[in-house]
């Protein structure tokens, strides 16, 4: 009996994952995870280590069975399809290169395996072109043992990118490369994936990388999907404090306090500072009638200003080339990070005045840490 292959051109709808859950003993690795990725789209899957990124990828690939939920390719439920037939190209964070094969043999191995299965070993990109992009052409005859970590990572990446799969999943694909190469490959791989017919998932613990490479971003934390959105939505309007903490360099300052009404205006007050909410949040603050809240303030939304309304003592100063991160301790003990281009020398312990532009302020529920919206 032969299995009829679906007409891919007609039914390409990408990947959808519905309500996936998975437990390992007492640990809830994944709970009710739902997401979808369109053909040609890159979904950046971001979360701290242990959040469930790898478990989710392994379930989609068919390497781990879910306790509940389903995975569909082009509307077809593939729960019972063995991993070998799913045509998922998966790049493992641990590389998983064959130690006895050369770099060339490793990269070509998925095409050979498919050719043996009687299916065409189709590929999107020429072998030589791919090697040139990844800067590993000079390494093709080496065995993995003779490669550095970064070189192994690029060989594993080449093996994933050379395929023409129904879904491509990259698990931390560029984490072990130096800054210059990471910057270059981030762009080149991202552009390559945008021209493809299959959906891609790019998993990373690095929020900035996710902002760069994702058409959309799915934030995962403690096994739950916290938010799915465009890079701008995620950065400007994080759905929870957990999300806000993952993005930005450095991430937003989160400060706890209370909301009150002063002459018809919603005002945030902590032991250290008092701030009118921006017009965007005024109505919201009134309607939700919430007392305990957290605010989120991006470090670039704070200006050092001798006449500023707020002040604190300088806790630490980190001098980067193009900007400085100054951490200030407020009189209530909270630490606030300020990102500035002003190169004035600043001494630890001295006083610093600053002002906050409230336009970009974020507002979170004091009990659950979810955005008030």
């Amino acid at each position, binding site marked *: 009996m032969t299995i009829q292959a679906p007409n891919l051109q007609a039914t390409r709808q990408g990947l959808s994952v519905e309500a996936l859950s998975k437990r390992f003993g007492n640990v809830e690795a994944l709970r009710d995870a739902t997401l979808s990725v369109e053909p040609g789209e890159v979904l950046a899957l971001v979360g*701290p*280590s242990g959040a469930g990124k790898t478990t989710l990828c392994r379930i989609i690939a068919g390497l781990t069975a879910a306790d509940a939920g389903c995975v569909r390719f082009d509307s077809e439920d593939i729960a019972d399809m063995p991993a070998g037939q799913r045509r998922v190209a998966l790049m493992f964070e641990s590389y998983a290169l064959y130690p006895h094969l050369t770099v060339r043999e490793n990269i070509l191995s998925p095409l050979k395996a498919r050719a043996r299965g009687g299916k065409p070993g189709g590929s999107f990109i020429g072998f030589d072109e791919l090697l040139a992009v990844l800067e590993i052409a000079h390494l093709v005859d080496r065995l993995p043992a003779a490669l*550095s*970590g*970064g070189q192994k990572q690029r060989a594993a990446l080449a093996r994933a990118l050379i395929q023409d799969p129904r879904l491509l999943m990259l698990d931390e694909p560029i984490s072990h490369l*130096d*800054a*210059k190469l990471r*910057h270059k490959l*981030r*762009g080149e791989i*991202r*552009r390559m994936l945008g021209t493809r017919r299959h959906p891609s998932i790019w998993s990373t*613990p*690095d*929020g*900035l990388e996710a*902002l*760069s*490479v994702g058409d959309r971003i799915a934030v995962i934390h403690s096994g739950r999907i916290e938010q799915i959105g465009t*890079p*701008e939505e995620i*950065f*400007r309007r994080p759905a929870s404090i957990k999300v806000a*903490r*993952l*993005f*930005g*360099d*450095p*991430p937003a300052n989160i400060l706890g306090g209370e909301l009150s009404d002063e002459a018809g205006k919603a005002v945030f007050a902590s032991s250290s500072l008092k701030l009118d909410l921006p017009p965007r949040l005024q109505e919201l603050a009134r309607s939700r009638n919430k007392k305990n809240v957290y605010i989120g303030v*991006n470090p*670039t939304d704070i200006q050092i200003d001798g006449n500023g309304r707020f002040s604190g003592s300088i*806790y*630490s100063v*980190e*001098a*980067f*080339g*193009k900007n400085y*991160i100054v*951490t200030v301790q407020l009189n209530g003990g909270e630490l606030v990070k300020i*990102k500035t281009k002003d*190169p004035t020398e600043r001494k*630890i312990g001295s006083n610093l005045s600053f002002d906050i532009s409230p336009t970009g302020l974020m507002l979170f529920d004091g009990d659950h840490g979810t955005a008030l919206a």
Partner: protein
Amino acid sequence: MAVVEFQEVNKRYADGQALAVDSLNLRCNEGEMLALLGPSGCGKSSTLKMAAGLEDLTSGEIFFGGKPISALPPAQRNIAMVFEDYCLYPNLSVEDNIGFPLTVQRVTATELAKRVDEITAMLGLEAIRKQPVRGLSGGAQQRVSIGRALIREPNLVLFDEPLSHLDGDQRVHLRSEISRLQKSRGLTSILVTHDQNEATAMADRIAIMHGGKLQQVATPRELYLRPANIFVANFIGEPPMNMLDAGVEDGGTIDVGIPGLELVLAPDRRKVLDSQKAGDLVVGVRPEHVAVVPAASGDANVRLTYREPRGDVDVLTLAIDGPKPLELVAEVDGPSPYRVNDLLRIDILADHIHLFDRESEANLEAAGGVQ
């Protein structure tokens, strides 16, 4: 705490192999944090291991406070190490891990308690001091291992990639904690890292190594403003510096092949061009120094090919079409209104460009190189 000095230090792991560390002369001042920064295989870890006594020197000498120490066993050097993977006793409590080096030294119980109190307070570990370290977050475990390093009051603290196992948020937090602690206690420290952000955030000075050789040692600011050569210029700054092949025209104008862009150096900089032959110049421009504006139809000189949102900034890849296609990266405030295929105009201020010799790759103006 003492001055640490490397004099003509060489390290060769086996006969016939290249030098892993090649004629290193380097000084870490008292109370200073010096970072050793470079790609894997640059010699930074070998240097650290020689200071710690975990590797022998092939030749040369290392001095602590003027005394040669290369013949001393590690235990007699009074060095503390903080490792990438913490190396704690998982079943012992926070305070027992911190106090461990002193129990081995057999100090009195009162002295031990006093020092542990002081260290746990300093590192903000009081609330969890009775807990076993197993199960603590990576950031908390690394603070415990820093506490264990400091309790002996060492001459020198060696930090070996202390933040690389931590997630972003914890990394940013611990980075400023370590920096504050090091400065407020005046700890003489050497930090080994491959991450320029870590080095820049924490170190007073950074020594950049490549292929066993020291490339430049300077403050983070100097490295950014005056990189000694193309390697350093590429290594410091993210996104990396743009490198453009350039020619010098008769009037002293620098041509980088971008239409409508004439770079004229300030008079006091012009003399460096006198000895340069046409076409042997590389001009470096940092992405944050490329000014981008929307262009009226005739004024455009670049086309946006790729836009990366990075939160408070956008990184733009710009193509210069024409007989000699070029690519340039710009960093602008984000979110920017620009989209792929937009025609834009860029400008570069001559004051912001770096000049390198193509052959030697040296910065034509930097005196900050290694003498």
